[in-house]
């Protein structure tokens, strides 16, 4: 007698049978267990001797279900062909660990299978089955919810987005001393509707400004949309085709509503794949307008002489990292290289490259699953070795997701490298615009970033580094204390919500210790914004008779305000010290 099956397990089986299309079915049926895909996966290479990371082993976690419920022989004698059904919620949790935590859906094994087994596609299918019954990492649930509810995966509110565009427009006008530079919003009948990754609006608005400068100097008739501007699509990562369809349709509706002629997608591998390739299938739409990556747009501007570039402005040796989605799912491998050669003086190829490149390890939504971060960073050794071997000082990529993944591994493996998007290099090489020379306000300082969220640590570190200072980071209070003792920083940014010991407690310890009491602390926390009023922290410091922090900023932070606060705190502390 087979064991009784849980409600969720039954739902997974039912949905599995509904969702199985011919391509997935063939991939599940065709594996001959030859093992040729084994060493093509970065997880295997970084975990020698552990067969549970092998693509076919991971694939078999879903294939077992296929064998037990769909395959002819498997339905009669499942064990003979390796079939086994799922019965309990614990088994679903185990499946979750594999499909979310041990595979970035990079498709490298798929392109190395002699049978044409597309492991990455049915790994996505498996994710979708689990998501359907609510089994997924917490980060995945949060991001998907934001994209369903707010319309973009980082929960950027419309007014914040529009404000950011306005701010970038003003920056550009002052940088180029040209009040005619605009970031048009909702302009009808534009040649180009430009859609972005919400990471740009939330964490890296400079790339919006850079793209706007390029459009401006190319004399382009372009616009951004006030709705449907997020071209990323978490449906690709969580396997939810309905979410995929909804996100894609939002962007398509925006372009059609504005009567745009072409949709240009900013640099994002999964966004490009979702919007250009998968979106029309998920949304069942045959689209009339054209779509292209901004990489292709920028390359065309240079080739057509619409913008002039001076490659000597980007003299550092640069290599190119192919995003898995761009290279293995959309065939965009040559355009970025051509562009890179036009805007840098020292381009160095990375090996292997193009469709054979290794994943940055941040793909497949991995950056949103903090519980798997140690595993991810371990597997990133393969990428780190690849990067190191190039001898380059800059790794260029065409994907915001890869930027985060690469940035994280560069710090982890202590590589002396920066990560840049192509748009930044093109904008930097633009000639002849006269630009304001910006002083780097945090030059010469050292900052410690304390935050439990890897995304925030990466973001803040990058921001501070770009403003000239050296940065270290810590995910919890204990590690922070060790870092402070080893080398007291000039300033600390502190998240109040930390695992184990809270930020408040750490604040108290630092202020009580005369060796560290004078280090300025800027609180950067979402704490007050959730359900504890801001007064809690103030009450805490009042009760403990502690001095107030040098700054208190709520997440999501206003970049300008953050840099200003940090800068000011550092100057005051230097002056008073």
């Amino acid at each position, binding site marked *: 007698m087979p064991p009784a099956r849980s409600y969720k397990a039954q739902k997974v089986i039912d949905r599995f049978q509904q969702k199985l299309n011919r391509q997935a079915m063939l991939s599940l049926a065709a594996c001959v267990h030859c093992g040729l895909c084994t060493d093509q996966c970065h997880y295997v290479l970084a975990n020698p001797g552990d067969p549970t990371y092998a693509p076919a082993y991971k694939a078999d976690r879903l294939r077992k279900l296929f064998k037990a419920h769909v395959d002819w022989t498997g339905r009669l004698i499942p064990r003979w*062909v390796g079939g086994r059904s799922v019965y309990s919620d614990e088994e679903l949790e185990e499946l979750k660990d594999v499909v979310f935590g041990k595979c970035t859906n990079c498709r490298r094994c798929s392109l190395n299978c002699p049978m*044409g087994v597309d492991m990455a596609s049915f790994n996505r299918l498996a994710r979708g089955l689990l998501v359907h019954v609510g089994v997924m990492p917490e980060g995945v649930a949060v991001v998907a919810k934001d994209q369903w509810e707010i319309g973009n995966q980082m929960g950027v509110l419309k007014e914040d987005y529009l404000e950011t565009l306005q701010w970038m427009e003003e920056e550009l006008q002052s940088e180029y001393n040209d009040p005619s530079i605009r970031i048009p919003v909702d302009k009808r009948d534009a040649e180009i509707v430009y859609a972005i990754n919400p990471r740009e609006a939330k964490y890296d608005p400079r790339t919006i400004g850079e793209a706007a400068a390029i459009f401006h100097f190319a004399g382009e008739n372009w616009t951004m949309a006030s709705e449907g501007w997020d071209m990323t699509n978490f449906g690709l990562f969580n396997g939810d085709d309905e979410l995929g369809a909804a996100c894609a349709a939002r962007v398509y509706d925006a372009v059609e509503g504005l009567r745009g002629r072409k949709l240009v997608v900013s640099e994002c591998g999964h966004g490009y794949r979702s919007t*250009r390739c998968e979106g029309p299938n998920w949304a069942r739409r045959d689209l009339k307008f*054209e779509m292209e990556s901004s990489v292709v747009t920028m390359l065309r501007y240079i080739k057509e002489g619409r913008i002039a570039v001076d490659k000597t402005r980007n003299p550092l040796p640069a290599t190119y990292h192919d995003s898995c989605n761009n290279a293995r799912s959309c065939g965009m491998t040559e355009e970025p290289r051509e562009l890179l050669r036009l805007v840098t003086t020292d381009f160095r190829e990375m090996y292997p490259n193009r469709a054979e490149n290794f994943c940055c390890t941040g793909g497949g939504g991995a950056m949103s699953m903090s519980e798997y971060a140690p595993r991810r960073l371990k597997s990133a050794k393969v990428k780190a070795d690849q990067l190191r071997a190039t001898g380059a000082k800059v790794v260029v990529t065409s994907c915001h997701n890869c930027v985060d993944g690469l940035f994280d591994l560069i710090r982890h493996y202590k590589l002396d490298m920066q990560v840049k998007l192509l748009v930044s290099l093109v904008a930097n090489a633009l000639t002849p615009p006269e630009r304001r020379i910006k002083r780097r306000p945090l030059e010469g300082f050292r900052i410690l970033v304390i935050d439990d969220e890897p995304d925030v640590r990466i973001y803040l570190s990058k921001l501070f580094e770009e403003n000239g200072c050296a940065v270290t980071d810590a995910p919890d209070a204990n590690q922070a204390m060790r870092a402070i003792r080893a080398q007291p920083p000039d300033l600390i940014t502190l998240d109040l919500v930390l695992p184990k010991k809270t930020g408040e407690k750490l604040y108290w310890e630092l202020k009580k210790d005369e060796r560290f009491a004078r280090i300025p602390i800027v609180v950067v926390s979402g704490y007050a914004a959730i359900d504890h009023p801001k007064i809690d922290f103030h009450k805490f410091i009042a009760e403990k008779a502690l001095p107030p922090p040098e700054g208190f900023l709520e997440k999501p932070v206003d970049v300008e305000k953050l840099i200003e606060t940090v800068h000011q705190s550092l100057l005051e502390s230097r002056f008073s010290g």
Partner: protein
Amino acid sequence: MHEPSPFLDFAQDKLQIGALLFMALVYSLKIRWILKFPAGRDRQAPSGNPEKNASRGAWYSLLNIAMPWAMPSTRNRPLFYAQFVAFHLGVAASILMSFLIPYAPRTIASAPAVLALQVVFAMACIVGILRLYRRIADPYIRAISSPDDYFSLALLIVWLGFSFLAAPNRPAEGERALIAYFLLTAFFLVYVPFSKISHYLYYPFARWYLGKTLGHRGVYPVQRQEAGA
């Protein structure tokens, strides 16, 4: 020429035809079954690269089997690929021999033909044994192997062994090897559609669909640049 015994005659003729008909029937049903699953449609615009399109991608993908340089997994393992060729050649030769012995025995009656067949079977059999050893000894392969994987491979090794013994086709010197060979062939034909050996039925479908999509999207044929190139 020595007349085969009635049992050998049955085994090499009627039994084979019966087994073949059974296999054909099951395969037709299997193809019908595959086609019952809805095929996902590619609505996205073509890549725009004149070198890459759906049909080129599909053909490139189908011919992948003959292009060991196309993927790092085969490019970096020439010996493994050579083993693959030897093994599948042996299987194909043995299937061919099961038709030639009863219906056109003269075509493989000469000493050089027999020798050539035996070399092919011996090599395939040795490769099969090496593959079985690998399946048992390599922890990665062991972890993904099912009873059917072991059984199918063992079955082929034994069958190839009997193919080697049956190749001279001399029933006058004893029919045992021939009878065993034909009984195994019949069993093989009946068992194949239910085992992993039916992968050759899936191969064209799986590769076609993957290649069609990847060609349409501009991934296939894969472009690459190796170090030093």
